């Protein structure tokens, strides 16, 4: 009871705050300024999404097979150490990764996509690996015992049962990715970072927000989109959201 009342109160407060903010921005002519950037926002959003799509699909295309390979029993000895290397990979700040990839690949889209790919790869690989190695040995034994070949086991039993965890990895990875793309502007790949960083440099808050707000919205939208896909794709029996 108390919790739900607090929740309702909280919601009203947020609405009031949003309304106040809207009124204030209108009064200061902020919205006009913001709309002045609209064509830029449209163009840069497309560029932003394109960077995410490229690096994200590349990360999925590499991360899932890599996770699968590492989870095979024959890889058990080296798998943990390779996962450690990947873990160290993520502790390097994304900005440093971008800087490094720029020093190899120069300026432009290619080094940006590569840097984003590196930053996105780990959550996907790690979750694929964890999802597959977390499957109970009894299940694998049952699958083998009824006469499934290793490939049939992988596609009919292992992947479907790990899918929920794999999707969780993709969701984290792509949300991080969308939020990291603005940094790509720094090595000349465009994206909404252009408005954010230029806005900061020129001390132009409207311009900065014209980059920041769409970035935030994109992150939320991507997160929601993957959640919906996971809901539809993961079989009902192993989907906690559909139990």
């Amino acid at each position, binding site marked *: 009871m108390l919790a739900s009342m607090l929740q309702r109160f909280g919601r009203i407060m947020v609405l009031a705050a949003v309304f106040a903010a809207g009124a204030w921005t209108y009064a200061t002519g902020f919205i006009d300024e913001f709309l002045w950037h609209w064509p830029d926002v449209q163009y840069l959003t497309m560029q932003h999404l394109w960077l995410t799509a490229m690096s994200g699909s590349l990360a999925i295309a590499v991360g899932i097979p890599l996770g699968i390979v590492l989870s095979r029993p024959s890889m058990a000895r080296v798998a943990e150490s390779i996962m450690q290397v990947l873990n160290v990979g993520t502790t390097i700040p994304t900005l440093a990764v971008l800087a490094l990839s720029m020093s190899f690949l120069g300026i432009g889209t290619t080094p940006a996509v590569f840097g984003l790919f590196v930053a996105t790869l780990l959550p996907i690989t790690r979750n694929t690996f964890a999802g597959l190695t977390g499957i109970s040995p009894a299940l694998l034994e049952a699958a083998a015992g009824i*006469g*499934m070949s290793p490939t049939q086991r992988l596609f009919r039993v292992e992947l479907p*049962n790990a899918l929920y965890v794999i999707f969780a990895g993709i969701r984290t990875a792509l949300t991080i990715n969308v939020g990291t793309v603005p940094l790509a502007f720094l090595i000349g790949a465009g994206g909404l970072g252009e408005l954010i960083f230029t806005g900061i440099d020129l001390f132009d808050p409207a311009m900065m927000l014209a980059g920041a707000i769409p970035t935030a919205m994109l992150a939320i939208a991507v997160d929601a989109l993957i959640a919906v896909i996971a809901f539809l794709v993961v079989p009902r029996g192993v989907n906690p959201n559909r139990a």
Partner: protein
Amino acid sequence: MIRLENLTKIFETQKGSVIAADHITMEVPSGEICILLGPSGCGKTTTLKMINRIVPPTSGKVFIEGEDTSGMQTEDLRRNIGYVIQQIGLFPNMTIEENITAVPRLLGWDAKRYRERARELMDVIAMDPNIYLNRYPSELSGGQQQRIGVARALAADPPVMLMDEPFGAIDPINRAVIQDEFLKMQQALKKTILFVSHDIDEAIKMGDRIAIFRAGRLVQLSEPDDLLAAPKDEFVESFLGDDRALKRLNLVRVGDVVSSDIGTVNPGDTLATALKRMDEYGYQLSILMVNEQNEPVGMVPRSVASLTRGYCRDHFQPLPGTIHMGDSLRKATSIMFAEDTTWLPCIDDNGKVCGQITQRAMTRHLGARFRAAARTATAPATGA
């Protein structure tokens, strides 16, 4: 038929090698259930899993229907052996129908055929196909899951089944029900079954033969009654428990012990006739009274017959109970103890009297097997 020949498994571990199965040689005739029984870690599961190569044997051979399986493709071999694992292992991502039809789909049956098969199997395991086929394993109780596990193993109608403690996860009451259902099913299907258990009572109930394992070795392979009557050594004896004579009560049918040459009276007989007949047959306490249809209606006690005059129909007493020819001695004993009586009339399917069973006959029957067993056990020793 399954035949194991010198089947051996040695696990190499950090702490040295473990001999999990040591030259196991045995045979299970077609259509029989053989129970692998023994204490924890004695190699039952290992032996079972070597048959479908979940555990690759170190040495030795497995023959199924006379054919050496080492020449077969692993997947083909497994698809022809029904396998029920101890942990049930249903696929959580598949519906019950998909679980049950997993093997038929691997074998490439067409959809219509395996759908029909799924419904058929649901009938066999007494679950409603309309309710359960579209559910997921997580939506079933443990006992229901275990039945589905058995159905999945039966799906492609394999001649051979391997079952590793298939009813282990079920509470005792439901376990007894499932065991009964399974035995009924087996009577119709006549599979050749290797069945792991560590429950002696289950072994006695389910097994046509019981193989006792100890530390990787097969110690004794006998029919349940022989096993209880003549355990080969002290290990088997202690494993069976000191109430093994009582356990045999489950195995012997009333029909095996019944004496059919009995004296009875009719309601129209006099009490004097009753007394005379009791003396004739040596009955100390009472005599059975039957009607014209030879159905048991009561008994006439000696005390009444010797002190009173008249007809049986006016002086009989109610019977303490009756027992069916197909019932076990265990049930007969239970009724005798509960009703404080030493004999019970035995009836057939139509309720007609076909004899009676006495405590003396029961103890003599059980004792005879034990005495014979003791003689054969000691004979070679004294001879040597």
